């Protein structure tokens, strides 16, 4: 028995030393993982490079669109190679529950400690805000008066004929369904899951595509494959910047965040915590929206004057815009009721 175990560890060590070969260096460093693309490029300029410089550390980067299964397998292997992960907040919370991410000591993260309590948890710090908004094609709805403005409009296929697309995921989609059914944005939680699915059943025959990636939602709207879509605000504004005739409204948008969390047993834990504090520094945070259409998570960023007045108006987490949106409760989504709702999704899709 002992022998076979030994053999196993030897194999594991051989595997890891192979993996570690490329990145041996004496200076303090961390492995930071985000979601890639334009978003990761923007934060590299706004946050990662300045933080690395200020702290005198090296920030190695990796990008993974679906980090969750890898987070789990890394921790399960007993020797994770990632330190800090930037993922949708619910994964940080679930990771906390399942012992996959480290509990944070906020006395060592003063910048985060100063943020509003709902922006952090025992295991995570909010990193940036984005919004699931109602976007539409301007060729189909040229004047503002007759354009869809709310989820009720999105659901109203008679008054607003056209092809529609929703995300193939319950998060934010159930919220939109409830708002379409008349639930107020600040009275959503706990979600009435049955009511939400019933409302979704109503619009289902009119959904042309259930999109699975941000790129797909943008391509669908750009190609005219659909006329209106629930998509992330940055996706639609990027299209508009490319000259596509599309726009969106923040009204009844669902304000969501990604958070930073640290993997359990991270190889460079102390450096990772130092980085966490630096990453939510108001000035770095204020720099993020200069490079991409996502909002800072630290509200103090709006006091730094780094972001121009005009720019503030375009950001999802700007106070004016936040007022007309619903703030997603990740705590509810990681509760048993939330997880049950998530599992029910597949069944709903197949019917």
């Amino acid at each position: 028995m002992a022998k076979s175990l030994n053999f196993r560890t030897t194999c594991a060590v051989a595997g890891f030393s192979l993996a570690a070969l490329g990145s041996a260096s004496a200076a303090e460093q961390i492995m930071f993982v985000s979601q890639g693309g334009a978003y990761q490029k923007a934060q590299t300029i706004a946050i990662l490079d300045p933080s690395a410089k200020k702290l005198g550390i090296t920030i190695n980067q990796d990008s993974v669109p679906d980090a969750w299964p890898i987070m789990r397998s890394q921790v399960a292997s007993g020797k994770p190679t990632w330190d800090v992960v930037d993922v949708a907040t619910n994964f940080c919370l679930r990771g906390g529950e399942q012992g996959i991410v480290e509990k944070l000591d906020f006395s060592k993260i003063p910048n985060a400690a100063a943020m509003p309590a709902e922006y952090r948890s025992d295991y995570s710090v909010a990193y940036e805000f984005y919004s699931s908004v109602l976007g539409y094609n301007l060729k189909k709805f040229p004047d503002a008066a007759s354009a869809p403005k709310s989820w009720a409009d999105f659901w109203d296929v008679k008054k607003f004929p056209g092809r529609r697309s929703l995300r193939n995921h319950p998060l934010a989609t159930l919220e939109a369904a409830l708002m379409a059914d008349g639930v107020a944005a600040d009275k959503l939680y706990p979600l009435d899951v049955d009511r939400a699915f019933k409302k979704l059943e109503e619009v289902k025959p009119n959904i042309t595509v259930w999109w699975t990636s941000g790129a797909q939602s943008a391509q669908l709207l750009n190609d005219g494959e659909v006329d209106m879509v629930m998509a992330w605000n940055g996706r639609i504004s990027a299209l508009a910047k490319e000259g596509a005739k599309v726009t969106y409204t923040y009204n009844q948008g669902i304000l969501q965040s990604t958070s930073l969390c640290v993997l359990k047993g991270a190889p460079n834990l102390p450096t990772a915590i130092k980085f966490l504090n630096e990453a939510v520094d108001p000035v770095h945070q204020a720099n993020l929206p200069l490079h991409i259409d996502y909002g800072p998570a630290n509200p103090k960023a709006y006091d730094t004057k780094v972001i121009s007045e005009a720019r503030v108006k375009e950001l999802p987490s700007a106070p004016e815009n936040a007022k007309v949106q619903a703030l997603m409760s990740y705590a509810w989504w990681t509760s048993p009721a939330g997880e049950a709702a998530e599992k029910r999704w597949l069944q709903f899709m197949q019917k």
Partner: protein
Amino acid sequence: MSTSTIDPSLRHQRREQALMTLLAAPAVLVIAALVVIPVGWLAAQSIYDNGFTLEHYRRIFTEEVYWRSFALTFRIALMVTLLTLLLGYPVAYAAAHAKRPWNVLILACVMLPFWTSVLVRAYAWLVLLQRTGVANQLLERFGLITEPLAMVHNELGTVIATVHILLPFMVLPLYSTMQKIPRELMLAGASLGGGPLYSFRRIFLPLSLPGVVAGLTLVFVLTLGFYITPELLGGGRTIMISMVVSRNVELYNQWGAASAVGVVLLICVLAIFAAVGRIIPLDKMLGQK
């Protein structure tokens, strides 16, 4: 010269056999370590969850999510298989009967897409078949339709792209069977007074059947395991078994459920191969791939 009591030729034979087994051993070990053990592990997991349980299997047969997906997958596999046969048979026939350079050209047309990434081909179909895509524009210009057809983001799109990917797996076994059918037989059929259709039906078709069976089996079984194409072209609604397996693992960490679904799928595949293997030797079928 041997003084041994064992017949030397027998001993030689044994040594030969041992040597051959030894030569095959490294390859067999690789397959054992990377197919047999992982799949066996999954099988064990599907019936062991803190003790022996058939719960995961019970769920496959009672919960809608699972059996709907199985039903959809088999329906798509059936459609794809029949369509590849309908499209593949004439192509293989033409390739087997055309003269140079036409036969080479036909085979090249069959093989070239084979070496284009499945991923990229899925996007090519999106561009071709979507509402504002080339296909709809052409159909509209010729006045064949007034409203764009929904050819993608649904089952139809999945089938069109899957047939495209699997067509070579039908054409190649058909072609290699047809090539071996002596032309004189057809001539003999004609000399007996039958028309070309008669000799085709009575002579050529029956002789090409082994290729048909091999192609049908390969295409059917490969469709059962399809993953990327329905994911990208199904519009989110076309959930095939492979997608259920990967979702159970990635999203919900339900290894038991994923393993059970995988095991059922594997049993289906093995049963099909075993049944067909009684008609055509398996290595012949796969060798033509």
